[in-house]
């Protein structure tokens, strides 16, 4: 009985009750039921709803935000299915691809990077490179080269960090030169030393 109760307490509806406006609940329940019916992960939708509730987003925009999340999950699963047709889509992979879409990565680039390993880190590394202004194709080639040199998982984030550092060196390097420098370093790109030195090498100011 306790186990059943625990499951009920963790149901999406129970988690949202009291955390989102009552008027939003029917719409949110419906979207989450659609996700369940399509075997899509529901946790990203629950998180988006909780976020909207915490931020005090008006009901129509809140429900639209969650609906947009559902569309991204559908798109993400289609990408995963195309890229890895031989195996069933995992919830984690679909959620990671949806997150990459939310960061603005091109679906074709995602599809190129997907086969081979859990997609979260490699997609974030690609999104980091694109955010720094590196061309998407060159970013994908660099990450592929890094994988071939034995770098995987979060080490791929170090590749993106190294490329951005090269780009910022005094004297100015073009993205092509920066990528060539990092490619020459592989697989010995520096490990970003914890705890998060990136947070102290950036200029304070935005929003503060």
């Amino acid at each position, binding site marked *: 009985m306790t186990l059943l109760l625990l499951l009920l307490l963790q149901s999406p509806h129970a988690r949202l009750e009291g955390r989102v406006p009552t008027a939003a609940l029917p719409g949110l329940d419906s979207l989450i039921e659609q996700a369940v019916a399509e075997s899509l992960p529901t946790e990203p939708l629950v998180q988006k709803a909780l976020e*909207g509730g915490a931020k005090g987003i008006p009901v129509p925009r809140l429900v639209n935000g969650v609906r947009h999340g559902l569309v991204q999950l559908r798109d993400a699963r289609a990408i995963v299915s195309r890229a890895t047709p031989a195996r069933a889509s995992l919830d984690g992979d679909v959620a990671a691809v949806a997150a990459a879409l939310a960061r603005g990565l091109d679906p074709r680039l995602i599809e190129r990077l997907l086969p081979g390993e859990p997609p979260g880190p490699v997609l974030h590394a690609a999104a980091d490179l694109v955010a720094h202004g590196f061309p998407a194709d060159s970013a994908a080639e660099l990450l592929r080269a890094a994988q071939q040199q034995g770098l995987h998982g979060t080490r791929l984030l170090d590749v993106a960090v190294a490329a951005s550092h090269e780009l910022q060196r005094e004297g100015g390097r073009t993205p092509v030169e920066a990528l060539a420098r990092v490619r020459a370093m592989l697989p010995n790109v520096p490990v970003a030393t914890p705890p998060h030195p990136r*947070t102290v090498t950036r200029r304070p100011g935005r*929003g503060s």
Partner: protein
Amino acid sequence: MTVIDPRLQEALDGERDPAALPAELREAYARLTAAAALLREPPATSVADRVMAEIRREAPAPRPPNWLLRPVTFRLRPVWTLAVAAAVAAVVFLPLRESATPGAEEGVAQFVGHFPGARSVEVVGSFNDWQRGALALRDEDNDGIWHGAVVLPAGQHEYMFVVDGERWVADPLAGRYVDDGFGAGQQNALLIVRP
């Protein structure tokens, strides 16, 4: 991501004498190195460590009293069963672990924000179900630099700072951002926790 002045970057990397920087960059250098010093501090001792220390401090009793050895029968009404189950659920599914030692699939996330004059700053995000009041930052010396650390599961987490209980601000130092999807162009900061 924010592009940093290359001269400042080189000074931070130890490749340039900070004293040779222009005045405005020297100020930024001082601020960033102060923040770096904060980040190097280990997370505060965890609740679990403190509890274990208290437990260890107690001397073992030589012999348990008789009433401890007598069998006891509990009669619980269903309503109490529900309450107990809810309490167990709260502990089992508690999203944040207040432990200074991350497990194999966890990492330490450090948060730093420059909010001069703020009365409170907290971090709200997907790692705590966007629940207010779960992770407050501290500014012990009132210099406007608020900081805190927490052990989180490895992976991606979206978050924001809430300043003075009402102003939502994307972490200016996060480096990664993602549109929050609610149509107003607001961005969440994105944190990737490494195991």
